[in-house]
């Protein structure tokens, strides 16, 4: 099995993630974009692990860690977005520039 198509897929996913992160204004969509990027990384981890036939299965284990962290992150992220939405009635990131110096 060749590695290249899988890496291209991961790179495409990652680029979509970056686009979403930078271009979307809705906080929920930005969180989704971050998830996309994390999963692109997961694909890379698993693909490389399969390619070098790592007997310790490091890549898969690492991918599971990333998924766990991502779950925690999205949990906290959504909670924050929810609280902001309740207080400000908006999920638009441009409205939250209160930390401006």
């Amino acid at each position: 099995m060749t590695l290249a198509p899988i890496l291209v897929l991961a790179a495409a996913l990652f680029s979509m993630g970056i686009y979403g992160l930078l271009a979307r204004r809705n906080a929920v969509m930005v969180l989704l974009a971050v998830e996309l990027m994390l999963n692109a990384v997961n694909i890379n981890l698993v693909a490389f692990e399969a390619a070098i036939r790592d007997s310790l299965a490091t890549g898969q284990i690492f991918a599971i860690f990333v998924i766990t962290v991502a779950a925690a992150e999205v949990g906290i992220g959504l909670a924050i977005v929810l609280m902001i939405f309740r207080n400000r009635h908006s999920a638009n990131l441009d409205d939250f520039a209160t930390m401006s110096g």
Partner: protein
Amino acid sequence: MNQMLFRFAEEAPEFSTGGAMQEWAWLILVVPFVAVAGIVFFGKRMKYQGAELAVGMMAFVFVYGLILWIQTMTDHVVYQNSIVIARVSDTLVFEWGWVVDGLSSMMYFLVGTVGLLVFIYAVGYMRGDVRYTWFFASFSLFAGAMLVLVAAPNLAQLIVGWELVGVASYLLISHYWEEKENSSAGMKAFFTNKVADVGLIIGAIALSGAVGSFRIDDILDAATHGDGSMNAPLFGSTVAIAGALLLFFGAMGKSAQFPLHIWLPDAMAGPTPVSALMHAATMVTAGIYLMARMFPLYQTMAQDARPWMIGIGAATLALTGLLALVQDDIKKVLAYSTVSQLGYMMTAVAAGGYTAGLFHLFTHGFFKALLFLGAGSVIHSVHSNNMSDMGGLRKSMPVTFWTFVIGSGALAGIFPLSGFFSKDEILATFSHEGYALVLSIGIAGAFVTAFYMTRTVALTFFGTYKGEGHPHESERLMTVPLIVLAVLAAVAGFVNWPGVFTGFTEWVGTVAFAPLGDYHPESLDLALAATGMGAALLGIAAGWLLYGKDKDTQQARDRFWIPGLYHAFEAKYWLDDVALGLVGVVKGPLARFVDWTNTNLIDAVVNAVGISTRWLGQLVYGAFDQGGIDHAIDAAAAGTGAAGGALQKLQTGRIQQYAGAFVVGAVVLVVGFVIFTN
């Protein structure tokens, strides 16, 4: 762990290693911090709001310090113990330890005595303060930090104590932070000290790195055994001189040497007990202590550093004493006086007078604490710091007045008060080491010191009362420490009377590395002592002539003020009487001549001396201190502020702009990586 280490120089093998008191001396370092924690957490619920813990702690330090010092006197104990905290390499080890030798015992005793009296005084002085409990917590921290510094057997622990002293001083100086000036004064003190601390830290790293040990003993060992010692190949004279000068730079900040003295007068914004402790025992003595602790280094490998130190010390002595002449704030007079006296100590230590500098530190601790507490007692009663609001207080505040006079006399160096002996020893050191210019500056400094102290006493306690309300003597809680300190200020000089009893020399010489080349006179040099004392008396006379002319209290002043000398110098009234009598009897040219001499020559000389001294003081204060140094500091602060304002614009608060910058950075890194690895 807990390894014992005793190191002695070959010259002094007769020291004993101490016993249980020395082994348990770590209590001196721990008890103050336990007291701080106790006051912070439980202080408000206690009967005296935490003050009893603070005073009890200081009483413990006093008793323990006294015992340790007595043991030093009788048994010549040099004890050192360290506990390993962390290992950097085989030799470079972070340790926490305590030293009990002549030098540190003297400091324990000084901090304990002055501290206990000042703490008791503060119980009365601070009563009713908004942050009474918090004050005693920071005050205890201040004393505890100084003890950590003094006990340090290695430079790392010394820096920890040094910085803690800085933090505590910041808290205490800006104690009344409701007014902007006071919090600014705290920051000024902190930042000025921080500038100097950079020197201390770099110097400590340089010396410790080259020698391969943080231990002061090891550094002094390498220094006294010269270049290219087997165990310290990196330690050459360049490193030694650079390190020594950097340590001195650190000492310049804490010990307020010109031009880093600027923080000390502003530090008067804090409560008066803070000023008293800061000027007498804890903060400003740290620099002198460090120089004394490292004395063998400056006498051996870093000898070339000494001219700089003498120059700066002498400049401090000469310039800041003059500033005291033009101050209206009584505490600022005392503050500039402290700076000037620190100049004496620093110059003395740099010139090779280890004992002389420490002796002056010792006596100065007592009389300067006394003067500050006396000033505090006056301020407490008049509700103003300015001498233009005081006057005539000697009747309403007799105890404060007499103790203040004793303190002023000691500061001016009047025999047999303590300042006379210590100042004379310093002058003898300058004379013996051949620093003629510094000696003359020292004698001139004695004149100026006596001059401004006379002015202060005259303006505060003589003449008519110019303030509001009815001043009254302070409560017993405040006057008793004054009396005890006055006794100490009067008699402390007798512990080192050349030719009669020189115990102090022996006691502070009880250190692991004997203070090489330290000069201590065998007997009192009468000519020099007379010169120094003469300068002081001349200063008192000149000050009195200029500031003491307040007719309505003339009689009381005549009774009090050193009658013979006073009359001789108060030539105007005396010669007036003679001249009038002669005019009445002979009406001849002689009478007119005497009258003419009196009004034109003698007065003119006295006035010219006074006015030119005052003018010089004003010039130095305005041009140097306020104009030059303060502006430079202000400009540096404004520059920092402007840079902050410019960088502020980057802080947009838009998270996606941050993410964009992040992505661009990552892309640049990746592209760079690809380009440079292929």
